[in-house]
């Protein structure tokens, strides 16, 4: 990938030419009817996924996990343990797939890179949260430095938070420009670029109309992925707010030819929930998005439930939580 100035990925240049133009474009998008959206998400949640389909879904879900630790108390030891788990999720069953990425704070990127290499899983990505995660409340220079340091330390992916204050006060172009700036900061010394995931914090955006507008805003600015939330607020990923984003990436590809990934994060803890999200992806976007390249789960405890379900499918019985690792 080149290090040139990164233009919007679409032919919709004009819409970002002024704050007014961007505002009227985003407000001209079709509205979202909350009742209908929630009904649709609930209906998709009633699909009955059994036997072969369930086995497929569980392995797919494991391979899509960004195994995450984002605590103030994170240590190198904690991160190394998580990396080992990401590479070998089930020590008793080597057919269990590896996770997609290990998601950590920027200062742990180096530790995670080394640990993954040592564990024999260098292909597992390291994702770093950046831009004053989770609040996003810092000077832009700080956010860009935060990003650049994580990239320099070897992060394959950057999970940035948007400035919700700017979004909610209607300064869409500021948000747009900040995403573009962070994307430019994702460029490495060798000219390649870390993938950029843009976190909205849906719980704070509050309305589905806002989430749809924010999706388009982030995609116009060049997001590789759009992500629901930080996992640090009351409302994180929900099936309806994720569905809005799935519909947005579908419509964006139709309008521009550019495909963008989606990552729900926070509160997805059970295999049953994960399968419901996969059903939503399957029936809204289809095969094209059913891979770790285009869909991720941001989660920490989801993996163990998937592993327990996986063991249940292969042995016919539940062994219990002591048969999966606690890391």
């Amino acid at each position, binding site marked *: 990938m080149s290090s040139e100035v990164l233009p919007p990925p679409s032919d919709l240049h004009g819409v970002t030419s002024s704050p007014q133009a961007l505002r009227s474009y985003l407000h001209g998008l*079709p509205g979202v009817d909350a*009742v*209908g959206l929630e009904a649709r998400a609930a209906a998709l949640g009633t*699909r009955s996924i059994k036997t072969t389909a369930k086995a497929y879904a569980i392995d797919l879900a494991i391979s899509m996990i960004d195994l995450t630790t984002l605590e103030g108390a994170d240590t190198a030891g904690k991160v190394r343990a998580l990396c080992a788990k990401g590479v070998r999720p089930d020590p008793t069953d080597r057919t269990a797939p590896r996770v997609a990425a290990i998601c950590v704070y920027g200062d742990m990127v180096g530790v995670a890179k080394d640990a993954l290499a040592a564990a024999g899983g260098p292909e597992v990505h390291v994702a770093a949260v950046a831009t004053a995660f989770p609040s996003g409340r810092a000077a832009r220079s700080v956010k860009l430095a935060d990003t650049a340091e994580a990239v320099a330390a070897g992060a394959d992916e950057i999970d940035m938070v948007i400035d919700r204050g700017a979004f909610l006060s209607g300064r869409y172009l500021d948000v747009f420009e900040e995403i573009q700036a962070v994307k430019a900061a994702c460029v490495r010394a060798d000219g390649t670029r870390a993938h950029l995931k843009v976190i909205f914090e849906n719980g704070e955006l509050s309305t589905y109309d806002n989430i749809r507008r924010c999706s388009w805003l982030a995609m116009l600015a060049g997001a590789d992925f759009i992500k629901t939330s930080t996992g640090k607020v009351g409302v994180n990923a929900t099936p309806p707010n994720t569905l809005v984003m799935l519909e947005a990436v579908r419509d964006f590809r139709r309008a521009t030819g550019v495909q963008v990934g989606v990552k729900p994060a926070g509160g997805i803890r059970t295999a049953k929930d994960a399968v419901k999200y*996969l059903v939503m992806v399957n029936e809204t976007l289809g*095969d094209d998005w059913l891979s770790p390249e285009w869909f991720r789960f941001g989660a920490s405890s989801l993996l163990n439930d998937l592993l327990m379900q996986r063991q249940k499918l292969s042995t016919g019985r539940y062994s219990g939580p002591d048969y999966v690792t606690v890391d």
Partner: protein
Amino acid sequence: MAHQKFAYAPAPESRAVVDLAPSYGLFIDGEFAEAADGRVFKSVSPSTEEVLAEVAHAGEADVDRAVRAARKAFGTWSALPGAERGKYLFRIARILQERSRELAVLETLDNGKPIRETRDVDLPLVAAHFFYYAGWADKLAYAGCGPDPRPLGVAGQVIPWNFPLLMLAWKVAPALAAGNTVVLKPAETTPLSALFFADVCRQAGLPRGVVNILTGYGDAGAALVAHEGVDKVAFTGSTEVGKAIARTVAGSRKKVTLELGGKAANIVFDDAPVDQAVEGIVNGIFFNQGHVCCAGSRLLVQESVQEEVLDALKRRMSTLRVGDPLDKNTDIGAINSAEQLARITALAEAGEAEGAQRWAPRCELPESGYWFAPTLFTGVTQAHRIAREEIFGPVLSVLTFRTPAEAVEKANNTPYGLSAGIWTEKGSRILSMASKLRAGVVWANTFNKFDPTSPFGGYKESGYGREGGRHGLAAYLAEPGESTSGRGEEVGELDR
């Protein structure tokens, strides 16, 4: 579809929860009995053409017997305190909930509709109707029908095959709450859930004769409607039969309510929430294979968003899963009968012959049973037969309009007037459209939503009278000062 990455494995609901007998009789005066002349007919499963059971074929003599039983029971039933009648209705509602899985599977077997609809829509609504009207039984004086409302007498009720148990609930629950007794004839293609309901009545200890079920064909329905002992006729079904019933009862003392056909307009404006509108369009016409009298069978889409909406609709239709109705992942089940399939096929062919463009997603239909792929016609105008006649199947006709006034004009330009839908983000437009549309129900940013508290009924050839809510109760109560046929022949101890 095997080429998909994420193919859902079959998830069939077990039919072992339904204990089907090889044959069933008529339910008269609390007993199952053969038809007087011993005739029977078969009920088949539309998805497999398997014979499910033989049921008695009621004739005139049986109608007479059932009406007499209902007349006899009327005296004691109507004399019960409302709270007592309410107890029976609450009991029925609870038993329906307890047996809902069994009844959902039975309905799916007999009707061909998907289990996710019987399980998630039909049965919860059936129980809700009984609970709702049970609550009214001791509050009739507060229903707005005068201070001392009286029941009408014996209700003769004829119901269709599209929602067999739900239509039964719509008819039986308000009738019993108001103190009437009933003779009900289910459709000949879907008699089984009504017979299971007879068993529910026995389980609830309902006094004999209060509910009588006659399985049979149109002749039995005609005899019931014409019977001297019937005070109130309630019918849901085709406009053609509704007209015949209106002629039969004209000039008699009988009261009548008719819920007939429809050709509802589902109107999508350019500022509609597109994804939810598409869901609403799909739900409006493909719910229950389009076997819905209030189905949104005419899509009126504003020309400026026609392409966008149709693209989204086709994409969504391609994800509909057609097939085994007992599979929990099936969205569209079987057409109810060979006759209905022939009618849908003929009208779809007429659509093509008259120049409309036909489109259907690729889907493999099972080899046995009656099936019709979800179908879309574009380029339809008011002059096409498929825009005027009720198809009663999964066939959507797409028309366009330019202005709200044109939308109203086209929506109202039909002999029917049962329902309509409006899709727009603008609240004032919803209100202004709703007041101009001549339809009994107008849904805004949703479609096919039902609730026992909400009255339902039509304009013009969609019938008269209302079911549901207090209005539905009023249809089974005499107006103040109105004479009724009086109490039953025998008033005495409840004959259990």
